[in-house]
């Protein structure tokens, strides 16, 4: 830029010297500026998308955690309460109350101060609700609120009865992803080594398109494959009473097949980027082909391989249709891969499949789960980029 101006001023002096008036100041071209601004906006849109994701997921998640749910305790009050009673009797049926619970009778909010068997002492008319008499037989409703603590420390997920422990969903996600990784990482790396170090040009030209086709098959077709091929196969091998119709193992194995092309092609790129001279040096020292591959080429490409692994893991965690079809409907906390369990993504698909009404707890909960999923995959992706940048061996 600076050079540009220098040239212009130099030629400007020449022009002046010749006595001709030439306007040589930088022209502003409104068209060019408009185009550049538009293109910048196009690029900037991606930032908007990210902000939008974080904002929407965050906003609805906050609603999810801030939400007070009223749950019918099925416990009626046994005698009528007048406007100034602070202690009353409740029936023995229904849920157990606890000191410190927020309860609601009709529209009046109360806070339980003390509890002696069936006699309840309360602070009445909370949050400005009118203090009124209540008839005997009115049911008590208990307030529940999803807390972060409950969300992250308990393992039962059942919004209908007020249970919000994310771990049954996360556990199922980890089970399917782990199965997928066990299948895909060794196979993918071995395929990559074969393609990059052993395969003839002819073999590569056949094998690579096949892997590309495998990568291009839509995930819903993989889901169909898991349910109608992999599950029957597992049931044939391990027995029908051991393997459920819906199970995490079948979904996991198929996700493994699905991410295999990703692992192999990214790893192969990393292996091919290792310069020939390294291989030739190893051969020159008397190494066999295998020793060259495993002790020279793979270590030299390790950052790329690890990055491929991490991207594949992130893909496996976010994979949706295979688990929605084959892993089962209904959250379950189990470590048995042959039992059905619902993953985070599977749960989101199932509850949003019907007509989901806005502002319902289910609606808010998919955002909370989505946020968790977003951060899990995002951190893995960032981690993988870091690894590539940090540990990459640069050859000229």
């Amino acid at each position, binding site marked *: 830029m600076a050079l540009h101006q220098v040239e212009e001023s130099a030629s400007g002096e020449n022009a002046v010297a010749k006595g001709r008036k030439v306007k040589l100041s930088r022209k502003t071209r409104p068209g060019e500026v408009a185009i550049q601004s538009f293109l910048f906006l196009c690029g900037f849109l*991606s930032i908007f998308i990210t902000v939008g994701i974080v904002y929407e997921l965050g906003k609805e998640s906050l609603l999810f955690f801030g939400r007070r749910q009223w749950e019918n305790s099925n416990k009626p009050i046994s005698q009528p309460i007048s406007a100034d009673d602070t202690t009353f009797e409740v029936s023995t049926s229904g849920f157990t109350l606890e000191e410190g619970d927020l309860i609601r009778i009709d529209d009046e909010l109360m806070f339980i101060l003390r509890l002696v068997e069936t006699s309840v002492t309360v602070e009445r008319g909370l949050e400005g609700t009118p203090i009124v008499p209540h008839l005997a037989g009115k049911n008590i409703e208990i307030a529940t609120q999803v807390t972060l603590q409950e969300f992250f420390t308990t393992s039962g997920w059942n919004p209908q009865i007020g249970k919000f422990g994310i771990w049954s969903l996360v556990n199922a996600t980890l089970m399917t992803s782990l199965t997928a990784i066990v299948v895909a990482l060794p196979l993918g790396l071995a395929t990559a080594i074969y393609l990059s170090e052993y395969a003839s040009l002819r073999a590569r030209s056949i094998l690579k398109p096949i892997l590309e086709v495998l990568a291009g098959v839509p995930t819903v077709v993989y889901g169909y494959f898991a349910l109608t091929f992999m599950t029957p196969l597992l049931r044939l091998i391990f027995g029908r009473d051991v393997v459920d119709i819906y199970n995490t193992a079948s979904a996991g194995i198929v996700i493994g097949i699905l991410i295999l092309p990703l692992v192999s092609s990214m790893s192969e790129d990393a292996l091919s980027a290792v310069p020939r001279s390294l291989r030739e040096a190893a051969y020159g020292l008397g190494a066999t082909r295998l020793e060259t591959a495993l002790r020279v080429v793979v270590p030299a490409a390790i950052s790329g391989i690890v990055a491929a692994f991490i991207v594949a893991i992130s893909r496996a965690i976010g994979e949706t249709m295979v688990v929605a079809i084959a892993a089962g409907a209904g959250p379950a906390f189990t470590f048995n891969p042959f039992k059905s369990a619902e993953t985070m993504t599977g749960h989101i698909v199932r509850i949003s499949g019907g007509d989901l009404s806005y502002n319902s707890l289910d609606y808010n909960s998919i955002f909370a789960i989505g946020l968790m999923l977003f951060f899990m*995959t995002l951190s893995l992706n960032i981690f993988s980029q870091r690894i590539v940048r940090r540990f990459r061996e640069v050859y000229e």
Partner: protein
Amino acid sequence: MSHPANGFQSNLPRRHRSGQAWLLLFQAATLIGILGLTALMLNILNSNFGYVVYVDKVNPQTLAVDGVPLENLPSDTLASIFRENVSNGLFTRYDREIPLTDRSQSSIYELILDFVIVPEVKQQWSLWESLTRRAQIQSIAATDYPEGYLVFESWVDYDFIKSPQSSFVEIAGVRTAILGSLWTIGIAILFAFPVGVGAAIYLQEYAADNWLNRVIRTNINNLAGVPSIIYGILGLAIFVRALEPLTSGAIFSGSAEATASGRTILSAGLTLALLVLPLIIINAQEAIKAVPNSLRNASYGLGATRWQTIWNHVLPGALPGILTGTILAISRAIGETAPLVVIGASTFIQADPSGPFSKFTTLPIQIFQWTSRPQEVFRNLAAAASLVLLALLLTMNATAILLRNRYGNRN
């Protein structure tokens, strides 16, 4: 002196043996990937063809007039047969859609087939079973369903592609789903292509190396790794809910044909646009990067402005690459299911989509629906729809590869 050399020599066969063993392992691993693909394809083909036992609700022979079989009767006779055998409500509905007198003979025949004869699948066998246990299947069909008939059915055929969805397995098709897929993809490309290419031009040709542009670059890479279902949630919150007046078409039509819900083709298309945007940007960047700098310099040297250079020299050179990348992004979008389920694709639609504000269903959604039905027979439909989807994708990818091979090496 010869000792180490001897040791080396004696070691060598063992090293070669282990080399061979590992090579076998690598080959086996590669083979497993291929086996996976083969199993997938065979599995789909296996459910696509096979013997089926049908039992008719009404025997077509009883409907024949004067010994003329049903399919050869003239349309007015067929129309009266249709009228006599279905409820008034159903008749009026179809008569109002297109009057029966205006319908062709074959379309009335189809109506009779669908609503009067109603062939029902009683039992079905996969291709493998049909080939290996033919005699057994024929005897089962003859003894268990004496009034039924055995047909070797191909689930995917022209009828399957051209007929709309139906709750009867026998006549269900994927026309609405294919049209829905094309509509959503069309809208997605309409938005994602210009914006994506624009962003790529900005990043490659204009952006200086400052923190803002670095953030944009990193951000695009991260967006490409976000699971598709997250885009679905975003689409649900923004397009379906927040922009409902726009995406339902209410502000354009005053709710004449508006569905009064944001769960429309437009929302789906925009959601897919966000999903493929990072892919298009990254691919287009690569294509633009591959245009040699000498072209740019020559253009500048002749006094062209930056935009003139880009428009007349950089973009034409990068276009094949950009198109290839875009086709690959489209084929990714065509197969996407999860985000569309989340933003609320309709599960049962018989009418063709009429515009961006109609409700929609797409091919992958259909496959998902049919797969998750408890009745086994719907799996055949899922397999048939998968075959259609794969054929569509294969065509697109072949186009992309052709483009790449044809124009790829020109620069």
